[in-house]
């Protein structure tokens, strides 16, 4: 047993006896005075706000993300005057967050309230990936602000004078006047930061690092209760790339960062492809024994998207929308992005066009739509991109879409490719408005893909949301090799959508299967009724993409059931369709159609294999990846499969592995086994780690 179990020897218990000295009285007095000054300032502001009840203000969560660059959620009022007022502090923020900032100027904040106006309009959102922060306008134009504020939804406003600034400490460098003013404004915005706790919980964005959507593992379901399972396909691979990077850096990724379906779908599988673009894919199925549970079986469903022949080369109209904020100034961000895009440009031909728009650090069109064969010009423009800069570009996304629409190619691929390390201050501040905007553009034929770079700031949740709304893919580019995979080997899949809104529904035959569990796809679950509703959006599949879904099924009467049968039984003895195991339905829409097509295939005993050694290498490999993902996440159902067994299974399914991804994965299993040894258990099983742990 590990030391975790022993309360008495737990070294962390030593932390209880902290020896913290009492605060000094003068420091306390200073702080209290500063706090009171801030309080009074805020009060005066409230009093001048003419109407609105104070409870209205309570709904405002004003969480500024403290990382200087996270300004995506600024809720700009419409007035241009306010935009102008925001530009200066924003500039300061960007300035202070680049590596070029002189040390003294960087981040010392005056601890006082000085004449600053600020407005904070906020709102709580439950699923929105970002935080709402707002505010900041320096005191340069008090009169103007006054007017502006009177008519807007300001919640707070500092009075023009709150005494002379007592400083926090003596360390403050004295910046130029304007800088000081904007620094004050920034500080104000940070003061605005605290928000009601419940909304904190709801806000997934944490300024301190990468963010992921939380989700719970798919539960085991009884066929008698819920015979039908419905989900949307997911061809994203970002989760694998991120997981790999974390493991290679020596960290176990957060459980929420591991999405098993994305791990499985990262790898190409050799499923038979469909014959024509009209029916763009066909399913390949197998049922074989579960490697981690001798009593259950896995039902694996694989589909591969149709690959158009070279003669069908579709024209592409691409607009790169590139984040050039200060935080992109790291080797694995902008420089990697440049090399990645030059790879992509190499793949394009004379009927393709490329344009480049930048946002955040600098703003505007860097390259007007240019024929892809003019490589010198495109690569020159890419080379000239630099991270950092002093002006915020607010028009990024609208500009990118405008260019895409100008050069729109009917029947071709019209796509905006957003590349970022997590700053989504693309010009539309409300995440919901942004999603709506992207949806509307998608419906008019321009799609969106998102490429994530770097770590520490990565906003995976937003990336996924945007790409899903834009009918594109979200990929995480951790290295040049990954860029090669996404932008060269899978370029067809990335750019050439062959079917959209692909949904899968599996109905199990209660006579044959008693329980089932879908592995992964937690974030893609659909309601049963959504399947036939063409209005419900789902995942898209590109040329040559493979998608794999795996169910763990418990055969009826095997004795391995985890759910007890109902004492009073089922009333209806449904006529069963013989020995069919399940019935698979898939719905998809052709790229330019709004009406879905249906594919129906029964899962018959023909596809059942008695021994896992008999199934194809691809199938074994996918099962190994699923086992890996479950073990890494600490799944409740992963069983007792050891890392060695997973590795052996992956090796047996390695196949030809021309691209080398599978060998890389096998090495990753070794890394994971060191970081999270077999004996390492879920913290929730460990008594020492917590009293309550559901």
């Amino acid at each position, binding site marked *: 047993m590990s030391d975790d179990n022993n309360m008495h020897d737990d070294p962390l218990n030593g932390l209880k006896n902290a020896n913290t000295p009492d605060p*000094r009285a003068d420091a306390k007095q200073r702080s*209290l005075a500063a*706090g009171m000054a801030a309080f009074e300032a*805020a009060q005066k502001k409230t009093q001048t706000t003419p109407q609105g009840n104070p409870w209205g203000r309570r709904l405002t969560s004003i969480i500024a993300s403290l990382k200087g660059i996270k300004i995506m959620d600024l809720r700009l009022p419409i007035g241009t005057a306010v935009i102008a007022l925001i530009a200066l502090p924003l500039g300061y923020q960007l300035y202070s967050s680049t590596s070029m900032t002189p040390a003294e100027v960087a981040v010392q904040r005056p601890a006082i309230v000085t004449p600053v106006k600020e407005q904070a309009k906020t709102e709580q959102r439950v699923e929105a990936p970002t935080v709402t922060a707002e505010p900041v306008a320096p005191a340069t134009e008090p009169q103007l602000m006054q007017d502006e504020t009177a008519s807007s939804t300001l919640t707070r406003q500092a009075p023009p004078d709150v005494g002379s600034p007592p400083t926090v400490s003596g360390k403050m460098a004295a910046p130029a006047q304007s800088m000081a003013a904007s620094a004050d404004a920034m500080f104000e915005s940070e003061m605005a930061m605290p928000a009601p706790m419940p909304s904190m919980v709801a806000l997934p964005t944490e300024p301190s690092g990468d963010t992921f959507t939380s989700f719970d593992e798919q539960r085991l379901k009884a066929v008698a209760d819920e015979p039908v399972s419905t989900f949307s396909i997911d061809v994203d691979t970002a989760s694998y790339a991120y997981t790999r990077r974390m493991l290679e850096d020596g960290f176990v990724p957060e459980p929420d960062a591991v999405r098993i379906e994305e791990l499985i779908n990262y790898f190409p599988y050799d499923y038979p492809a469909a014959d024509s673009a009209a029916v763009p894919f066909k399913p390949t199925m197998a049922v074989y024994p579960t490697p981690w549970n001798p009593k259950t079986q896995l039902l694996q469903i694989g589909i591969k998207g149709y690959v158009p022949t070279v003669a069908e080369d579709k024209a592409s109209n691409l607009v790169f929308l590139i984040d050039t904020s200060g935080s992109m100034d790291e080797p694995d961000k902008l420089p990697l992005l440049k090399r990645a895009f030059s790879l992509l440009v190499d793949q394009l031909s004379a009927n393709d066009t490329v344009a480049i728009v930048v946002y955040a650090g600098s703003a505007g069109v860097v390259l007007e739509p240019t024929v892809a064969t003019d490589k010198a010009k495109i690569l020159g423009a890419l080379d000239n991109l630099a991270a950092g800069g002093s002006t915020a570009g607010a028009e990024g996304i609208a500009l990118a879409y405008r260019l895409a629409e100008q050069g729109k190619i009917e029947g071709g691929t019209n796509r905006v490719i957003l590349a970022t390390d997590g700053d989504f201050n693309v010009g539309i501040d409300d995440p919901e408005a942004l999603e709506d905007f992207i949806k509307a553009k998608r419906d008019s034929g321009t799609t969106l893909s998102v490429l994530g770079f770097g770590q520490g700031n990565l906003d995976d949740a937003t990336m996924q949301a945007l790409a899903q709304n834009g009918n594109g893919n979200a990929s995480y580019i951790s290295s040049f090799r990954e860029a090669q995979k996404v932008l060269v080997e899978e370029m067809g899949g990335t750019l050439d959508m062959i079917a959209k809104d692909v949904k899968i529904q599996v109905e199990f035959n209660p006579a044959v299967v008693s329980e089932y569990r879908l592995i992964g796809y937690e974030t893609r679950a659909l309601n049963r009724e959504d399947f036939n509703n063409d209005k419900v959006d789902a995942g898209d599949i590109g040329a040559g993409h493979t998608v794999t879904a795996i169910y763990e099924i418990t055969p009826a009467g095997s004795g391995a059931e985890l759910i007890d049968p109902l004492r009073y039984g089922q009333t209806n003895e449904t006529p069963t369709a013989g020995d069919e195991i399940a019935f698979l339905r898939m719905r998809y829409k052709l790229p330019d159609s709004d009406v879905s097509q249906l594919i129906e295939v029964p899962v018959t005993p023909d596809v059942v294999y008695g021994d896992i050694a008999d199934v194809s290498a691809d199938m074994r490999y996918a099962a190994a990846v699923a086992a890996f993902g479950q073990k890494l996440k600490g799944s409740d159902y992963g069983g007792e499969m050891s890392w060695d067994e997973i590795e052996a299974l992956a090796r047996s399914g390695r196949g030809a592995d021309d691209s080398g991804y599978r060998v890389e994965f096998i090495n990753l299993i070794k890394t994971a086994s060191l970081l999270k040894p077999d004996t390492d258990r879920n913290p929730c099983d460990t008594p020492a780690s*917590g009293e*309550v742990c559901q």
Partner: protein
Amino acid sequence: MHAAVTELYAASPIDPRHALTQALVVRAQNGDVEAFGELIGDHYDMIHRTAWKWCGNRADAEDIAQDVCVKLGSAISSFDGRSAFSSWVYRITLNAVRDLQRAGKRRGRHSDAYAEVTPDEHPADQEEAATSRQLWAAVRQLPEKQRDAVLLVYAEELSHAAAAEIMGIREATVSWHVHEARKTLRGLL
């Protein structure tokens, strides 16, 4: 969400101090300066203590405590009472710690300087104190979330649920961070 909120109420017993704090919060939200003064006066020691535990030196602890007071002043009106006031104060304090340390990093000071240069640390009079100092230094060097989780759970002796509330993450994720922290510390302790 509702469940979480209910739980919170259930978890915080109504004791006199709690009631007093609540009354002060309400008065402060109605614009009563004295009530606000009393409120931060009551909480200053806790803020300072927390800041000290997180940073380990006086200068930073005082800076942070002052930052937090100022933030409270401007933001008290947006506190909605759905969580305990003290949780809210913790959250603000932790954010202030992070700000200060990031600012320090951006100024080119290495983060570990915080852990090693602890001039105000009480003198170690015996071996036990030295071990303790080593432990604190190691914990302060953990990645932010792991450090926050460990200190909230062990130094502040809060439940995982309360720590989750403060950190704005799920309870299971707190457990996970603590677990990871143990692994990180394994070689050091």
